[in-house]
């Protein structure tokens, strides 16, 4: 049972502007994304205009305004991964899943996110699915990995 937005706000009484990003992070950690009502509630709590909250939230890669898929796939596009061929892997994944970065597949199974660097450059090229790392992926192996997750969902 995830905490409601009001209860999250309540646990930050007399919060100032510097609580804005941590609050949004907490809300997204609980609910998976930032809903319009959350923006209003946070604005009221901190005494900030809705446009300001939206302006801050849209600045950072992390915040989403739509729910995630069951499997959240992060593709690392750091230098080491690029040098080892992550671009091709990424294109293959987009073709295979039928979605682009920042999108969720219609069946709600997969969402795709590009990450600038996951910091595990020794394992390049790298993807991360729901926190699980898969290093040294190729165009072929990444398709197998995605299909395994799809099968897991069907089971």
């Amino acid at each position, binding site marked *: 049972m995830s905490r409601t937005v009001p209860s999250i706000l309540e646990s930050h009484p007399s919060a100032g*502007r*510097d609580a804005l990003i941590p609050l949004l992070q907490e809300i997204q950690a609980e609910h998976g994304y930032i809903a319009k009502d959350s923006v209003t509630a946070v604005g009221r709590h901190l005494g900030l205009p809705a446009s300001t909250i939206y302006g*801050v939230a849209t600045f950072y890669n992390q915040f989403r305004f739509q729910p995630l898929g069951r499997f959240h796939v992060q593709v*690392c596009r750091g*230098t*080491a991964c690029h040098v080892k061929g992550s671009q091709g892997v990424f294109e293959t994944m987009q073709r295979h899943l039928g979605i682009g970065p920042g999108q969720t597949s219609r069946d709600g199974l997969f969402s795709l996110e590009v990450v*600038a*660097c996951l*910091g595990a450059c020794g394992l390049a090229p790298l993807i991360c699915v729901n926190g699980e790392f898969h290093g040294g992926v190729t165009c072929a192996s990444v398709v197998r990995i995605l299909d395994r997750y799809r099968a897991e969902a069907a089971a």
Partner: protein
Amino acid sequence: MTAGGTTLSSVARLRREDVDRPVIYVGTGTCGLGAGAAAVLKAVRHALADHPRDADVVEVGCLGLCAHEPMLDVQLPGRARLCFGDATAAKAAVVVHALLDGSPWPELPLFQFRNPAVRPWDGVPFLDEHPFFASQTRWVLENCGLVDPASLEEYVARGGYESYRRVLHEWTPAALCREVERSGLRGRGGGGFLTGRKWRFALETPADQRYLICNADEGDPGAFMDRAVIEGDPYRLLEGLAIAAFGVGASKAYVYIRAEYPLAIARLEHAIARVREAGLLGQDVEGRGVALDIVIKRGAGAFVCGEETALIHSIEGKRGMPRPRPPFPAVKGLFGKPTVINNVETLANLPGLMRRGADAFAAVGTAGSKGTKVFALSGKVRRTGLVEVAMGTRLLQVVGAVGGGVPDGKAFKAVQIGGPSGGCIPASHLDTPIDYESLKALGAMMGSGGLVVMDEDNCMVDVARFFMDFIQRESCGKCIPCREGTRHMLEILEALTRHPRRESESLALERFQGVTCLEQLAGVIQDTSLCGLGQSAPNPVLSTLRWFRDEYEAHVFERRCPAGVCKELLTYSIDPDLCTGCTLCVAQCPSDAIEGEKREPHTIVRERCVACGNCVTVCRRGAVQVS
């Protein structure tokens, strides 16, 4: 009681100079976990559960030899600690049994740790003989991969918090600033500003509150030094942070760490709690009238927040956009108060620096760059991983001796240093010493420590395009030169790598003028950008232009990618001897460029081919040839 019969002092026990009973270490840093360390750990515990002999299992951080992760170490009483690399669950079980039963090892360990207090193993090289470690000077990485990062006791047993205590009891903030300035320690995040001097600016600004911020955002793609230090030796960072806070006169410190490092955050949170329990954080530390509290702030995903004023704005709950300086953060920063921002590696240097003394620190390195530097070596190199060398070490040494050179018989082409703000060094200049000024003179930059090796199969125009694309995504968008300037530079670079057929006349003309335009735009962007991100954004382009102009010219004038990377500039053909006529590629071709009957060899019609590469991916016979 040790195997030798003497009683271990508690310190020696904590340092594991010798052990009472076997200890098995598993490297569970992010790299290790990514390579499968969780399964190894599980297998070790499983193997021990059944075994009659008791043993301890310790999770450690990254030793740095990422190429051989997961790492599995075993230390038997009275014997040197052994390290096995490339561990798997199966191998782990075998190793555990082998060592506890005394049966033969499944394979030769990578190395053993040199330790005069115990008996070494015959025929096993020592760690300091291993080519990866032989040239390293491990000051910052001293404990990484060796200690349990959760244990404050282990850190203290290895001399941890001695420096901070001495600083608290014997130094004044002003004297400390002078000492650190004298040592020549420069900011390790890339700025390279004299650390002690920056502290002094803040200390000398009258204020009722000062802040110290540890920049653990580590945004450079290809850099993971800070992550490894936090995961492997968090108390070192905290001690360094406390020393810095003392020097600056800051009673509150923030660690701004990127959200993409959940394990590091967890280790840090644990360490802070332990340090607080031990009274080394709080209102009155060690009764010296010094207060210090640490708050962790998670980044929300913005590379530009590695820039000081942008970082400050992010902590303040605003869009992470830089602002003009002056006023500098040391004078007017977070919440308007004097603020010093130091990189993780800078802070992690401090305990050792104070222990050795400024003179000893300054004795290592070059005239302008003192001490050591930690690098994250990755890319086309045999041994990827974390490397710490003395400043002044030749790049060739790092890439060749430490990294083992380029694998698979490929030719070395360049090493990218400094990430998206840096530049590439070609083979002709690999003999350059690692030093802030030398690197700048070559059009590169020390940066935070990312070193990516490239070989003949990498296209330097593509590399420039990759970095410019990154900068474009991460530009905050505030100032015209960075927002619009890098956008146009990226467009030019993309035009250089785009399929010839899809160009209009005007764009073709633009392409010819493109290189001149790139250089002119680069100059204005460097000259007018608001912050370091923009100012250094053109570096990768200028650097690749300087050393690999021929590749640019091939793209521009011959519409050819010599490295074979820029897909749209390649020519695709089907080898009739290999093609079975299965028609799979025909179905995948978006422009109907493949002709051929079923079971007859197919051909690609060059005029219609848009070089998407689908056919190559789909062909099961490797019949599609690319040149």
